[in-house]
C-alpha cells in the first residue's frame, strides 16, 4: 500500500478534480468573466479573488497554477519532497488572493535567467521558484494598477518581473542568516525587502498611491470552502494511514523537531506520516477559524492551505499551537475592545506559524510571546512593503525571529552547556 502515495495517478487524479471543481459551483460564462477579472486586477494585498472573480474562477486559477507547476516539476524530474509540497500548497492557497498565471510567469523566467547567469542547475533554484510568486502583484500592478499606457506598462511589468525573478535566488540565500532559519517563510522575508525597494520608488519617484484599491473580502463561500478544507484534511489523514498503518509510530520524529529550516518531514518521517501531519494541521487551522468565528475568504483559505503545506516542512501541532495561541490573545483583545477584527489580523492567526520553529526551539511560552509579537508586527510591515509581497507575514516573521531567537539563545546558554556535559 505504500506505493499508493508514490504514483503518478494520484497527481493526475488531483489535477482532474481541480479542473472539475470550478464547474460544480459556477457556469462556464461566469467562470470566464471571473478569470478575466482576476487576470486584469492589480492584485496588491489584499485582493480577495473570491470577491473579484467568484469561487469558480478562483478554483480554476488554483487548477491552472497547479498544472503549470506540476508540469514544471515533471519536466525538471523533481520528486515530491517536504519543501516542494509546501511550495505547491502555498501556490494553491495564494491562487485565492494575488497569484495568477499572468503575474507569476515573468518571475519564473527571471529565475531561469538567474540560474543561467550564475551557471547553476535550474533545479537547484526550485525552492525559491515555488515561493517566488508571492511578489507577483508587482507585475499585475504595473500593468493594471498604475494607470500607465499599456505600451509602457507591459514592458515595465515584464522587465521588473524578470528582474525580480533574477534577484530573488541571489538575495534569499543570504537572508537566511538574518533569522537563522527560524522564519519558515524566508522567501517571503526576502520579497518583503525587495518590495520595500519597489514601494519606495513607486511612491517616491512616481508618486503612486498603493493603498487606493478596494481590499474588502467576501465570506460568501465560507461553507463550501470549509467543507473543501475539512474533506481535504481528512482525506490526507486517511490516505496516510491506508498507505502506512504504522505511520503514527514515526510521529515523535516530527513532534521532536524544532521545525527550523530545513526540516523536511517527508524525508525524516516518511511521506505517509508527513501527509497525516498535513491533515492534522489543516484540521487545527479550521478549528481556529470556527472557534474564533473567522469566516473563510480568499486570504483565510490561503492561510489554511499554507499551514497545511508546511505540515510537510517545519510545522506541527507542538510548535504551531503556541504561536497560534499567542496571536489569538491579541485577536481576542482586539475583538473585545474594538468589536471587529481586520482580515490582516484574522489571517495572522494562521500565518503566524511562520515562526513556529521559535516555539519548537524555545518552548511553549516563548512561542506564545513570538505569536503575540508577530501579529503586532504585521500591520506595520504591510504599509512598509507596499503590498507587493503577498507573504507579508513572512516579512514580519523575519523580524520577529531575529529579535526573539538571539535573546532567548543567550538566556538558555546554560542549558546548552548542560546538554553538552
Amino acid at each position, binding site marked *: 500500500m505504500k506505493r499508493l502515495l508514490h504514483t503518478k495517478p494520484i497527481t493526475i487524479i488531483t489535477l482532474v478534480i481541480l479542473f472539475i471543481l470550478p464547474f460544480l459551483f459556477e457556469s462556464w460564462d461566469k467562470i470566464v468573466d471571473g478569470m478575466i477579472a482576476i487576470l486584469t486586477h492589480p492584485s496588491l494585498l489584499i485582493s480577495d479573488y473570491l470577491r473579484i472573480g467568484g469561487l469558480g474562477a478562483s478554483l480554476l486559477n488554483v487548477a491552472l497554477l497547479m498544472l503549470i507547476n506540476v508540469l514544471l516539476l515533471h519536466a525538471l524530474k523533481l520528486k515530491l519532497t517536504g519543501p516542494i509540497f509546501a511550495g505547491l500548497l502555498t501556490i494553491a492557497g495564494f491562487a485565492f488572493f494575488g497569484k495568477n498565471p499572468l503575474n507569476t510567469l515573468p518571475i519564473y523566467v527571471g529565475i531561469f535567467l538567474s540560474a543561467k547567469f550564475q551557471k*547553476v542547475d535550474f533545479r*537547484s533554484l526550485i525552492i525559491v521558484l515555488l515561493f517566488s510568486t508571492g511578489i507577483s502583484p508587482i507585475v499585475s500592478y504595473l500593468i493594471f494598477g498604475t494607470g500607465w499606457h499599456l505600451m509602457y506598462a507591459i514592458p515595465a511589468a515584464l522587465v521588473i518581473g524578470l528582474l525580480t525573478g533574477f534577484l530573488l535566488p541571489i538575495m534569499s*540565500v543570504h537572508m537566511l542568516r538574518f533569522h537563522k*532559519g527560524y522564519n519558515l517563510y524566508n522567501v517571503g522575508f526576502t520579497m518583503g525587502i525587495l518590495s520595500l525597494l519597489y514601494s519606495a520608488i513607486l511612491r517616491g519617484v512616481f508618486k503612486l498611491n498603493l493603498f487606493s484599491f478596494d481590499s474588502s473580502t467576501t465570506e460568501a463561500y465560507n461553507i463550501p470552502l470549509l467543507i473543501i478544507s475539512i474533506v481535504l484534511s481528512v482525506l490526507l489523514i486517511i490516505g496516510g494511514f491506508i498507505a502506512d498503518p504504522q505511520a503514527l509510530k514515526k510521529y515523535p520524529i516530527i513532534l521532536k523537531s524544532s521545525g*527550523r529550516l*530545513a526540516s523536511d518531514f517527508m*524525508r525524516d518521517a516518511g511521506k505517509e506520516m508527513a501527509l497525516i501531519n498535513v491533515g492534522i494541521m489543516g484540521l487545527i487551522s479550521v478549528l481556529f477559524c470556527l472557534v474564533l468565528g473567522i469566516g473563510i475568504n480568499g486570504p483565510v483559505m490561503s492561510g489554511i492551505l499554507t499551514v497545511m503545506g508546511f505540515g510537510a516542512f517545519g510545522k506541527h501541532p507542538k510548535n504551531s499551537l503556541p504561536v497560534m495561541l499567542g496571536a489569538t490573545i491579541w485577536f481576542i483583545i482586539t475583538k473585545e475592545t474594538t468589536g471587529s477584527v481586520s482580515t490582516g489580523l484574522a489571517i495572522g492567526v494562521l500565518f503566524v506559524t511562520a515562526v513556529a520553529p521559535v516555539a519548537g526551539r524555545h518552548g511553549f511560552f516563548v512561542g506564545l510571546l513570538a505569536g503575540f509579537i508577530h501579529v503586532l508586527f504585521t500591520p506595520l510591515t504591510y504599509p512598509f512593503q507596499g503590498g507587493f509581497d503577498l507573504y507579508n507575514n513572512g516579512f514580519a516573521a523575519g523580524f520577529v525571529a531575529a529579535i526573539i531567537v538571539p535573546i532567548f539563545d543567550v538566556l538558555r546558554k546554560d542549558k*546548552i552547556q548542560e*546538554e553538552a556535559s
Partner: protein
Amino acid sequence: MKSKQELKLVSQIIQELSLFVMYHGYKTYQLHFNRQDLQETFILILPDKKDDMLSFMEQKINQKREHEIEAYYWELLGDLDSSFELNILGLVIDHMSYSWKDNQLIITLYRTIKE
C-alpha cells in the same frame, strides 16, 4: 556550485561538525578534510563512542542527498543551536561510515562533487 561557494560550504560543514561534537560533550577531537578529484571526505576522530549521537548522525546523514535543497539552505550550515539538529548537513553529505579502532571512533563523511 561555483568554486568560491563550494569552499565556503566546506568550511561551514567543518564548523557544523565541530559544533556538533562539542555540543555532545567532546573536549578532544580531530577533524581531517581531504579533497580529491570528485570526492571530499571529512574524517572525525573521537576518543569514545556515544551511541545516541552516532545513531542520530546515521539517521540524518545516510539519507539521500538533495542537491536542489542544498544550493538554497547551505548558508545555515555551521549554525547549530542544539545537539540534535543536523538537517542541513544531511542534505549536503552523500553518506557516512564509522569504525572503532585503537580505542578511537572514526567517522567518515563522503561528499561527491560535480565537475
